[in-house]
């Protein structure tokens, strides 16, 4: 598949180590690409560059081969955007807002917006000023998707949505992906990215510290992690004497966490059968555990 978004050596230096530094990444057409990092890592700065709101200090970014800064307005025909901060124009209701945006976009009608609003259980006739945080967020999402753009840039689009609506949102993103859309989304909610993204980039202090294929994390890893609690100290200590790869031990609870390849799983059961086990549980590797490990182990070179 062709790369539709290209970021090359993008640097935006705000001083004091803030900004983006030498970011390289590309997003393939039809891909759902996630961007994760703590507040201030540079997620919003990156998306603002793609929108042509910010001018790079060095490097460049392009969408469909067009420079994001120079050809910003031409690109907007193909891009839907949810900004990180939601502040609506001075119009009365959600419907008025969609109509206004549709007029700017040169769209005929807002039937898709009405459908989307229904899907998100959003009463778009409500006054924008009275809307709750969640309703405003839904309105922003509807606005981004209503023009049926090929590319969607979503900056923490689900902030303020309840879990049910987050599910509606992730379903929508997945559906759009199947319709061939490319989605570039930032989030600090791992489970959201985990459920929809093909790849996720980790951003720390303006640097990309890793880009991971989600399929590598989604449960088909060959080495798994198990946590075991024993009933008595004797068994706990005896188990520690066995040749397993112990990752963590919590003596006060008589708990031990080991990692073991699938091939050796029967050896584990053979050993355990001699002991009195309180419980055993597999700890699935999630994007979150992966990220936290990576985050803490990576020092960003200044």
């Amino acid at each position, binding site marked *: 598949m062709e790369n539709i978004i290209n970021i090359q050596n993008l640097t935006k230096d705000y001083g004091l180590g803030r900004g983006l530094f030498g970011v390289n990444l590309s997003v393939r057409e039809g891909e759902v690409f996630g961007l994760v990092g703590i507040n201030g890592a540079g997620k919003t700065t990156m998306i603002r560059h793609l*929108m042509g709101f910010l001018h790079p200090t060095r490097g460049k970014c392009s969408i469909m081969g067009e420079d994001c800064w120079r050809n910003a307005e*031409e690109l907007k025909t193909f891009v839907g955007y949810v900004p990180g901060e939601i502040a609506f124009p001075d119009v009365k209701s959600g419907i008025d807002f969609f109509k206004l945006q549709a007029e700017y976009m040169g769209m005929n009608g807002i039937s898709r917006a009405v459908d989307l609003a229904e899907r998100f259980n959003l009463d778009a006739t409500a006054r924008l000023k009275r809307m709750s945080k969640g309703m405003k967020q839904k309105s922003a999402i509807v606005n981004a998707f209503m023009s049926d753009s090929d590319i969607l840039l979503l900056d923490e689009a689900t902030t303020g949505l309840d879990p049910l609506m987050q599910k509606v949102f992730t379903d929508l993103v997945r559906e759009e992906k199947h319709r061939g859309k490319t989605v570039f989304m930032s989030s600090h909610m791992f489970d959201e990215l985990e459920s929809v993204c093909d790849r996720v980039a980790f951003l720390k202090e303006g640097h990309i510290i890793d880009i991971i294929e989600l399929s590598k994390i989604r449960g088909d890893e060959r080495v798994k992690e198990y946590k075991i609690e024993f009933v008595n100290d004797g068994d706990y200590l005896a188990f520690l004497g066995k040749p397993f790869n112990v990752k963590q031990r919590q003596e006060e609870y008589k708990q031990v966490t080991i990692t073991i390849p699938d091939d050796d799983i029967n050896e584990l059961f053979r050993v355990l059968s001699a002991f009195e086990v309180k419980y055993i549980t597999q700890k699935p590797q999630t994007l979150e555990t992966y990220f936290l490990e990576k985050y803490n182990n990576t020092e960003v070179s200044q």
Partner: protein
Amino acid sequence: MNGTLMKQTIKNNISLWAILTIVQAFFIGAMVMGGKTPVSMTAMSYYALLPGLISAVYVIVTGNKLIAAQVDKGTMAYVLSTPIRRTKVALTQAAYFVGSLFAMFAIAGCTHIIAHRLGAGGISGDEVKAILLINAGLFMLNFALSGICYLASSVFNLSKYAIAVGGGIVGAMHLMSLMAKFNSSFDWLKSFSVVTLFDIDSILAFSNQQVLSMTGHAADAPDGAAFIWKFCILAAVGAVTYVAGSTLFAKRDLPL
């Protein structure tokens, strides 16, 4: 220019414009109809002070609302996430600003002419000329001052800075002109303020009207053509600030 944006801009700014325009029309109408005040008198007791201050409020508030406030709040993100060039956004806002000021003084001037005709039972060609030129002068002055606020609005991300700088300059210029007007020892302040380029005396002399001095003593015979080059300077200040504001807005980083 973008029609949709223009409609939206008019909607968001028309109420303040309407109130201030009505206040001005009401003042001049009441003064001329009620007191049968001659043009030369309105020039001294009304035009020299009130319209400048009223329009300064409009210029400062609207200047900020047109760009800086929208960047500050983030609402500009929605305009710029559609295929509209930034330059077009800037020019649409500028066109509204200049157009609304023009309409404000066109209405004020027409009200004055009509009121004078009705109140004094007639109006001479010179009087019409004086009224139109005075209002044209107010427009030129506000073209320059609005340009300064527009420039401030275009370069700052935060409303408070746009108002502090744009409003600060406009306020200071009016203040300096007032101080120079009321106390001749502050005459040197005149050269720092574009407000003094709105030369009512020269306009009155040009239209063969009596020139009354503010401080009571007989006014020096004013130069009847001086207002013309002063208009040109005001036009130049306005043109430069509007062009600079639009250009800078199109080129700068926006936190949207």
